[in-house]
């Protein structure tokens, strides 16, 4: 891996105006996130729904809902993405950074054929003809195990199953040969058996392309299967970040630990007790003053409720935001 990160996110914040009431402050759905992504690296971002994962991905492409306010920086190969003009973003979207959305049932345009939707981006970005685009698309459909790609070309999305549509979406994203693929819960909306197939497909990415991947999910099990490095998000902030092995061996944030305990391993090789985390994720409009996780945290003590823990290095290559001193498992004083 080269030294310069492919993508450098610094102190990125996404906020939306709160409600209709005048004078109400903004709601921060992503709060001061910093992340690096090396070329070809597979980064997993894990967190419950509402933790700001999706908004983080959307902000990299400037696709947040109208009214979103972005601050901070995200540089792709040195070029600033946050606040970039629409024209500049359009050159990055799809061509350099592709995105796979969560629900393949709604991500495809029901009015257009699969073929038209597959090829339009590559024809636009790579300036190639219809015939060449079709050839490449058919090749790629074959590679993502879509049966009878030729027939699929003339079909409409509603004629295909969810798993098939997600394969189409993945092929659509890969066709432009982006440097970075953002995947937003790509398996959540699918059947369990199909989930495993799609995951296998994403894992194959590494061999097929040199693209880096940011995979966002609420399922630590999914991350375990493919990520090099993992960032854990809670209430818009990153609370722990480490290499995948280290995180699974030495989770040092109580939230990560909770997530890890609630995994049901697909192979059943780990003896798993489904434990979950008590309580619900906080309302981003009404965050507690200290650590956002404190109300649900079994280890929380006085300081956690008053002061917000900063993200600090716990070990080389391992950062976390928690005041708990020692290895987890013992209650704080």
């Amino acid at each position: 891996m080269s030294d310069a990160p492919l993508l450098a996110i610094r102190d990125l914040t996404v906020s939306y105006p709160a409600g209709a009431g005048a004078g109400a402050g903004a709601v921060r759905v992503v709060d001061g996130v910093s992340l690096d992504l090396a070329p070809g690296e597979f980064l997993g971002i894990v967190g419950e729904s509402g933790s700001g994962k999706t908004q983080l991905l959307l902000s990299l492409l400037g696709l947040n809902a109208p009214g979103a306010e972005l601050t901070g920086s995200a540089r792709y190969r040195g070029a600033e993405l946050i606040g970039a003009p629409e024209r500049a973003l359009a050159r990055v979207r799809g061509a350099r950074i592709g995105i796979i959305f969560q629900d393949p049932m709604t991500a495809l345009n029901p009015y257009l054929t699969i073929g038209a939707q597959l090829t339009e981006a590559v024809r636009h970005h790579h300036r190639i003809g219809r015939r060449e685009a079709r050839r490449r698309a058919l090749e790629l459909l074959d590679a993502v195990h879509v049966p009878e790609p030729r027939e699929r070309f003339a079909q409409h999305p509603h004629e295909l199953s969810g798993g098939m549509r997600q394969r189409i979406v993945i092929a659509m994203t890969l066709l432009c040969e982006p440097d970075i693929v953002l995947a937003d819960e790509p398996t959540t909306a699918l059947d369990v058996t199909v989930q495993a197939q799609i995951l296998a497909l994403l894992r194959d990415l590494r061999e097929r392309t040199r693209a880096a991947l940011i995979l966002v999910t609420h399922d630590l099990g999914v991350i375990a299967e493919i990520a090099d490095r993992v960032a854990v998000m809670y209430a818009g902030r990153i609370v722990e970040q480490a290499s995948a092995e280290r995180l699974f061996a030495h989770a040092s944030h109580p939230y990560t630990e909770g997530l890890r305990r609630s995994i049901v391993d697909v192979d059943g090789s780990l003896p798993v007790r489904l434990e979950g985390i008590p309580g619900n994720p906080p309302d981003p409009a009404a965050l507690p003053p200290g650590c956002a996780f404190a109300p649900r945290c079994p280890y929380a003590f006085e300081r956690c409720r008053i002061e917000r823990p900063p993200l600090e290095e716990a070990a080389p290559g391992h950062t976390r935001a928690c005041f708990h001193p020692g290895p987890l498992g013992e209650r704080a004083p």
Partner: protein
Amino acid sequence: MSGAAAGRLPEGESPWRRAWLRLRRRPAALAALAVLGAVALLCVLVPLASPFDYATPDWDALYRAPGWPHLLGTDDLGRDLLVRVMWGCRVSLLIGITASLVSVVIGVTWGAAAGYAGGVVDSLMMRFVDILYTVPFIPLVIVLTVLFGRSFLLVFVAIGAVSWLDIARIVRGQTLSLKSREFIAAARALGVPAPTMIVRHLVPNLLGLVLIYATLTIPAVILFEAFLSFLGLGVHAPLASLGTLVSDGASELQSHPYLLVIPSIFLTLIVCCFSYLGDGLRDALDPREQR
């Protein structure tokens, strides 16, 4: 913030109160309601208070421009325009409301009966509605008004009788979905006869919906009456509706534009206000819009 306020209401709050709270947050609908109230009040009071009357010509005061004592001027027969416009509002509102009531009664009865009966009866009744949708109604109403004479009553009965189709369809759909709910099944199990069921259980549940569509039917009817008036098929002279005033004014547009402009403003105002109010009511009351 608004969503949270609605969520904080105590359990068991009456749906009407909830609807009113939701309506209260729509300034356009509230303003429309206020304007309509003001117009209604004015059109009742002004003719009572004014020294002029809508019918008596005043040969010394033909085509007076707006001023004193005729605030809005006078028409070709020297009649006070303010009083005539207020009478026009009375007539138009009356026609609009009555015709809407007629169409609501027919539509609700037909739709609730079809939805309640279900099966073959339902499909036959709705097939009939489908056929009526293809009938060119406005020509038929023209024929009706020509044939039966320009009776004040007939105009709005005729309009009401042809504008119930939408309401019938919506009410049928709602009835079908209400029918599957427990309280109807319970009433049926107790042996409540069908007409009683429709009146006592279904109709109250449909009231919100009916209110919305009645509100939206009123402006359509007022415009339609104006259309008939323009064709010379509206109310009898010397009585005037906003439609007759506007169409009379249109013929003197070049010489006396205020005769067109003033009634047009009132017509537009009333029609727009009813539309805004109807839209607001739909947002506040329509069960299909609630998530």
